């Protein structure tokens, strides 16, 4: 072939190849996406007892009712625990998209509690995505029970306990894993043998079984450097549950060895043992109301 013929052929080819680039290829080229947020790591603001990274958005009000029955091994007289119950109510609100607060009341130890939670970072997908959702949680809790020993000097401050926690989570398709490094401080503990400060590391997970159904689990390993010498042996809280979602409600049903539904209670004071059958059936109901919708 003569060189000029070849040249023409090349031009033709280049020309047609540009023309042949169809609209769909152009579309794919132009719609390359930046990082997108990963949503719904958890369906409710609690995994089971403890917090999840699920944040209330600005203007969302969450009304929660939690219930724990007695121990299933308490026998037929107690109707396998169903005769007894502990209740916790709370109202929680999203002040900002990243900042939520809540107050609550529990019958277990007659507590009043409050928390502040700040969402530091969110997991993303796509190019240059941030891999984790991270939140910081701070809680305060006051026990309202009458003093066990009124004859001694009892300080008001002795009623309080505090918790600081980091929530670090990542969603892998249907599975979400969360780690919770935790620090609990109790102003007053029952005996000298008990520690005022507790370190714990929690791990929680959620596995999505269907669009509105998920399996959840939660465990806290509480670091107790001194061998326990108190009469009441403490266990690490372990819980399993299901999340069932219907519209604005999330219904959580669970089995757990802890009676408390607040960090001060279940991290430091879980007295039930799974091995001995000290298991509580329980449920949480969450109802989210959107108080101020974004104006569009």
């Amino acid at each position, binding site marked *: 072939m003569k060189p*000029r013929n070849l*040249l*023409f052929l090349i*031009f*033709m080819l*280049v*020309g*047609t190849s*540009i*023309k042949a680039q169809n*609209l*769909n290829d*152009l*579309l*794919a*080229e*132009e*719609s390359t*996406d930046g990082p*997108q*947020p990963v*949503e*719904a790591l958890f369906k409710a603001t609690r995994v089971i007892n403890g917090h999840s990274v699920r944040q209330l*958005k600005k203007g*969302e009000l969450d009304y929660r009712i939690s219930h724990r029955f007695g121990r299933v091994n308490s026998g037929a007289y107690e109707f396998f625990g169903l005769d007894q119950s502990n209740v916790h109510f709370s109202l929680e609100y999203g002040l900002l998209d990243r900042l939520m607060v809540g107050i609550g009341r529990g019958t277990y130890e007659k507590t009043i509690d409050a928390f502040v939670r700040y969402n530091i970072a969110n997991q993303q997908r796509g190019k240059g995505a941030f891999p984790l959702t991270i939140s910081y949680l701070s809680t305060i809790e006051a026990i309202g029970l009458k003093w066990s020993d009124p004859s001694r000097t009892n300080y008001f401050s002795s009623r309080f306990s505090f918790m600081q926690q980091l929530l670090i989570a990542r969603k892998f*398709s249907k599975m979400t894993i969360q780690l919770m490094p935790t620090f609990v401080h109790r102003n007053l503990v029952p005996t000298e043998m008990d520690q005022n400060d507790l370190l714990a590391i929690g791990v929680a997970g959620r596995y999505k079984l269907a*669009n*509105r159904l998920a399996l959840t689990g939660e465990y806290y390993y509480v670091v107790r450097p001194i061998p326990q010498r108190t009469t009441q042996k403490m266990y690490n809280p372990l819980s399993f549950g299901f999340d069932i*979602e*219907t*519209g*604005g409600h999330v219904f959580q049903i669970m089995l757990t060895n802890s009676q408390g539904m607040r960090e001060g209670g279940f991290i430091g004071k879980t007295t039930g043992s799974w091995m001995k059958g000290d298991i509580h059936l329980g449920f949480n109901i969450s109802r*989210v109301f*959107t108080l101020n*919708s*974004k*104006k*569009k």
Partner: protein
Amino acid sequence: MKNKIVWLTLCLASFLTATAQNRYFTKTGHIGFYSHTSIEDINAINDQVTSFFDIATGEMVFSVLGRSFQFAKPLMQEHFNENYMESEKFPKASFEGKIADLKTCDFTNSGKYPVKVAGKLTIHGVTKDIEAAGNLTIDKDKITGESVFPINPEDYGIRIPSVVRQNIAESMKVTVQMNYQLYTAKK
């Protein structure tokens, strides 16, 4: 010598037709949908629709991320992606079609032209043939495409549980508005 000129002219001509400016595009097109029931109204808007439109052939393509739809209530938005669109599995919805009556549009004259678009709409991994009427508004080098048409989510395999059946309309009103600009290929 004469031959050479002919060849060169031909080469140039083939190149020019190839890069002819007949393609329009947008990355900020609007697609919204509206569901009305006596219980609640659901309204969602997406301002990040990518679309190409070839005025020579009448071909149109659209691509839209499920996650870029904005709802008034954050919980609605989450349910939309998690429970209905399953955006994890099917991140995009797309349309590929053609303007059937392209001849009625005069792209050199500003004005509003009613058109019919037919093609394949893919939502939730399900592709259906669809036809919609719309308007093309031509204003110099800008073209605006508009259309309103109904879709039934259940046609696209989106299951709506009976507890919320009363809250979500059987048929939703989809609104499309695209402000096209001339597309120049990236170097």
